């Protein structure tokens, strides 16, 4: 019988062989899109800044200094200070942490719920499918912003409430994508072979079907992050998201609601506006590039 050496030889052979797996071909396709690669690096810089600026900054986000209030950008305060003398450069990146963190958490939670329910609906079909998809329909006909505002005002407007609310309201679209894919995949002959081999349902769903759906989910999730940043921003802007004194990009930009600020203190709101713009733009470009890489047929 073949020994373990053959096994290990085989397993190591996996790395040095010219094995182009599905994911590496996607990656290759993605790298051809220069704009997407630039976006990726811009986003990387933003994320790294959000992580490290608050750590190395000499100021904290809540530290006030009434002597130095409303200063324009200078060497000491790169993006100036606000009306109670807090350093806006630090606050911008602390806000970025929260905005990005919340978006990632929302999309992650949304994907978990959506994938799970979409897979169950697509795989079992019939009554289970009907039930789950009708529930999804119900969630889809809620007026999004109004429900968000209602829930956030009933419960406290902490990050957890916000994350759960946004995720629970947005899982149906991902469930639909997953279900549609699985409906077509489960008719393929390799699924019938699974039946003939007696492979268990859970393995069939999570080992056979899900990897075939993941590419689409990742594309959707990438675009979803951009959307969630905007939603979170609008909620914070409306005062329904995270509240002062914790900064987010949304409530930093809220300063522009005051006409005097809009007119005279541009450094209160321009940096956060630019940050939101850049981040959302980058996620969208990356999402588009991923979609083209996953399914070349969808390209124009």
């Amino acid at each position: 019988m073949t020994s373990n050496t053959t096994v290990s030889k085989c397993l190591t052979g996996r790395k040095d062989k010219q094995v182009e797996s599905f994911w590496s071909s996607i990656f290759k396709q993605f790298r051809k899109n220069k704009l997407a690669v630039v976006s990726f690096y811009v986003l990387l810089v933003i994320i790294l800044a959000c992580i490290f600026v608050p750590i190395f900054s000499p100021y904290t986000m809540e530290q006030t200094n009434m002597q130095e209030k409303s200063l324009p950008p200078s060497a000491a305060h790169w993006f100036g200070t606000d009306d109670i003398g807090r350093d806006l450069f630090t606050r911008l990146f602390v806000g970025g942490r929260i905005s990005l963190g919340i978006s990632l958490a929302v999309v992650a939670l949304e994907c978990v719920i959506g994938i799970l329910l979409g897979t169950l609906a697509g795989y079992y079909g019939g009554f289970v499918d009907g039930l789950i998809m009708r529930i999804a329909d119900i969630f889809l006909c809620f007026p999004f912003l109004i429900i968000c505002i209602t829930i956030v005002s009933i419960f406290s407007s902490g990050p957890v409430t916000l994350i759960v609310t946004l995720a629970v309201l947005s899982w149906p679209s991902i469930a639909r994508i997953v279900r549609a894919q699985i409906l077509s995949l489960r008719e393929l002959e390799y699924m019938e072979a699974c039946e003939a081999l007696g492979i268990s349902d859970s393995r069939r769903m999570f080992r056979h079907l899900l990897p075939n759906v993941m590419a689409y989910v990742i594309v959707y999730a990438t675009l979803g992050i951009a959307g969630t940043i905007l939603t979170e921003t609008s909620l914070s802007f409306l005062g329904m998201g995270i509240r002062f004194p914790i900064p987010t990009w949304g409530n930093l930009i809220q300063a522009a609601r005051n006409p005097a600020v809009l007119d005279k203190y541009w450094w209160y709101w321009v940096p956060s506006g630019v940050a939101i713009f850049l981040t959302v733009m980058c996620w969208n470009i990356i999402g588009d590039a991923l979609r083209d890489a996953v399914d070349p047929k969808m390209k124009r």
Partner: protein
Amino acid sequence: MSDTATKHEVLLRVDDLVKHFPIRGGLFKQVKSHVRAVDHVSFEIERGKVLGIVGESGCGKTTLGRTVLRLTPRTAGKVFFKDKDIFEQGKGNLLKLRTKMQIIFQDPYSSLNPRLPVNEIIGEALVQHGMVKNKSEMMDRVIDIIEKCGLFPEQACRYPHQFSGGQRQRICIARALVLNPEFVVCDETVSALDVSIQSQIINLLKEMQEHLGLTYLFISHDLSVVRFISDQVGVMYLGELVEYGEKNQIFNTPRHPYTEALLSAAPTFDFAELRTRKRIILKGDIPSPVNPPSGCRFHTRCPFAQELCSIESPEDIEVEPGHRVRCHMASGKISASGH
């Protein structure tokens, strides 16, 4: 089956199997009619033998193969595997039976999951049924079987898209055989391959069958392939098994006009035969299985059809030992000369 000696053990017995697919329509999705894919089919396969099923597209060959393995539910009838009705088995017993009955599909592209490496495709069922204790034992078994199927051990960790069609079909064969099954349904296994690869795969199947004592239900529309590999042959037309017998009986003395027509349509390089044989050219297409013709289903295209054929459905008669035909001519109710 009282005289079943050990030598002639009946491995699979299909008894009056019926499979109808409902067609739903209208406002309330009510059943409007049925596609009669398999209609009252009966046959037996002895252990170690190969039964070839031939017929044109849409005659129910594939449905028969899938229903026999309980991959789709039956409408009526019984399928006995070693005297156990597979449709009566509970979930646990069925899982055990699954290891004994396997299928190899037609299309080697859609029958392998593109996201799984070959070792997992072949080995997962071993793990699922607890036939191996750990991963390295699984790899040993996988490497063993892929070598037997003509692949190399270092190919075990590659993905399906790195293989050619013939190699993929070898993977499919390895996947089916790794569980040590006793019965394998080969559903048009070589039809999607080109001719030179076909012969390799056919030889591999034959070799494995002799080596491991396998029993095949070999579904194909290619008469020469069926002739090469089968011991018994069944001819299907519109969901019915119209003729069934030993290979020589079917190929040398066909009794059903449809079998004769099929045989005469097969290309041959035997020029002596070409000169002597008369071609029977069938008129028209195969009728719809939703609404099969009355009486004998073949009467709309049969060159010998008479009035009786459109009225009365012919019985399944044994014309010589082991040779069964569904035709009024065989039962002597009408004669061929009458036309």
